[in-house]
């Protein structure tokens, strides 16, 4: 406890670094996953192809992946972010495809039949309706990425991994414990926040459920 009080500024800095690292990675991963998922949706060949590649990447141990990237892009944040983006890809792409799959076929049929153009259907019907399932995927990706980002400390990316790494090097159990607890707390809060967001993304279902419960 005294350790935390004595080093609260340092811990805070590392927490922020960690959050930033993960948020940027998830942001980039989402920007890549959405068009990729849209491109794959409903095409089994494409889904097979992309899942094979991202699935293979997912099996590479994180330390190994980061180390492979270091000779190419150097040490620090860049290889870590690249690694995290690649890890998140598998989950996010699946989440986009799953989300689009969850859009009822009759809704899409009615939309096309009424003469709504493809782009408008995608942006105003498919994507909003896919959002809840997609966010469920983001949740899993976020928790995973927050955990794996810890390894980034090994290649100088900063974040809470630094605390754990230093603790091990200096044989300071407290340091390791605080680091580990902080990562866990971060993962739990991200999970909680995204659950909330997921629920807010489907107001139509909530109100129907509320009406059903009160009836």
């Amino acid at each position, binding site marked *: 406890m005294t350790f935390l009080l004595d080093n609260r500024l340092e811990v805070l800095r590392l927490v922020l670094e960690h959050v930033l690292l993960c948020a940027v990675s998830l942001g980039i991963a989402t920007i890549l996953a959405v068009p990729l998922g849209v491109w794959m949706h409903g095409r089994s060949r494409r889904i097979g192809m992309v899942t094979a590649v991202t699935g293979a990447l997912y099996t590479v141990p994180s330390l190994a992946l980061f180390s492979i990237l270091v000779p190419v892009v150097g040490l620090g944040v860049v290889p870590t972010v690249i690694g995290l983006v690649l890890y998140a890809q598998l989950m996010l792409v699946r989440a986009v495809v799953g989300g689009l799959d969850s859009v*009822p076929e*009759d*809704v*899409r*049929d*009615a*939309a*096309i*039949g*009424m*003469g*709504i*153009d493809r782009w*408008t259907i995608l942006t105003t*019907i498919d994507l*909003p*309706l896919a959002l809840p399932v997609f966010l469920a995927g983001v949740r899993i990706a976020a928790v995973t990425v927050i955990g794996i980002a810890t390894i980034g400390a090994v290649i100088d990316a900063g974040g809470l991994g630094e605390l754990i790494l230093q603790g091990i090097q200096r044989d300071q159990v407290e340091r390791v414990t605080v680091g580990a607890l902080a990562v866990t707390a971060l993962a739990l809060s991200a999970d909680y926040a995204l659950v909330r967001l997921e629920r807010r993304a*489907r*107001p*139509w*279902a909530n*109100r*129907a459920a509320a*009406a059903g419960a009160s009836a």
Partner: protein
Amino acid sequence: MGDSRGVIEFDGVTKVYPGATAPSVDRLTMRIEAGEICALVGPSGSGKTTAMRMVNRLIEPTSGTIRIDGVDTRSIDVETLRRSIGYVIQQVGLFPHRSVLDNVGTVPRLLGWDESRIAARSRELLDLVGLDPSKFGMRYPAQLSGGQRQRVGVARALAADPPVMLMDEPFGAIDPLVREQIQDEFLRMQQDVRKTIIIVTHDLDEAMRMGDKVAVLQEGGVLAQLATPEQLLAAPANDFVQRFVGGDAALRRLALAKVHDLPLIPLDVAHAQGFGVMVDQQAQPVQWANGTPVRARIAIDATLRTALGELIATGESFAPVIDGMGRPVGIVTTALLHGWLDRPVAQSIDQHAAAGVDWHGPAQHGYAPPMQAQPMRFGSSRG
């Protein structure tokens, strides 16, 4: 919106799906007049949905042409075409994340109407389909019953006032009691809006109730018969249609006509022939001239099927027909019902559109059909 809008013509339309060896719709040629409901019936897989979806080009024909008001649908931009055709499907396909009002306003919004006009129109349509806009307008589709959702689907299809509507088993998911009610409401609404409608169903009763014409498709997407409901039952074009309409065709036919369609025996003629009907102070029929009580009274707007049921239930072979006030206006007999079934009916619409109109009833009664039936007071028709 004149009556000339919305004529749909199928001209040798064939659809062979990629990879299929046989056509799903085979050289379909038919014409649906403006303001008419054409029911498309047939067994599962006979190509009803395929035929319907070719009209708004959700499916492109392999060959042949579909014209709306004489214009080849292929020459119209596909989205413009679809926005001018109301589209209703069994699962409704309401947008779950949009309010009921927003759902109804979909096509007007696509057409670039201003928001206040869209709002006014959406409310008007909810009213039209019997949903209070202030109660249901802001709900999400998940907060509606199946029947209410279907009404919203119909309102949404009508929003931009399209001349043509396509409906694929629109009432199929609704339980039978509510279904009949919604069908009736829909027909009442159609009296005002006069759309040209293709309605797909595999429920023959629904086809008979809703259709001005019925197109029966048989396996392989071949049009077996295009006829009025009455013609279909009276003169099935082939064995397939015969089997499809089933063994109780006679009863179904009787259900299609009302007692006032019959050349009822006028009261004075009945009186002269010895079966005059006596009325009480309230002008209600109570007994026959020979003193036997009147056991059955048949409403003038009842179906012939109901009339037959009444006659059989009471063991009578004739009964007074009464108006809305319960006053007798004529006599109906089982012979008249039989004569109705026996009269010549053409097999299709084109051959003889007005089949049955010049029929005057069984000859053996030897009277001219009355222009109107006069009610008779006790003793008033003596002499």
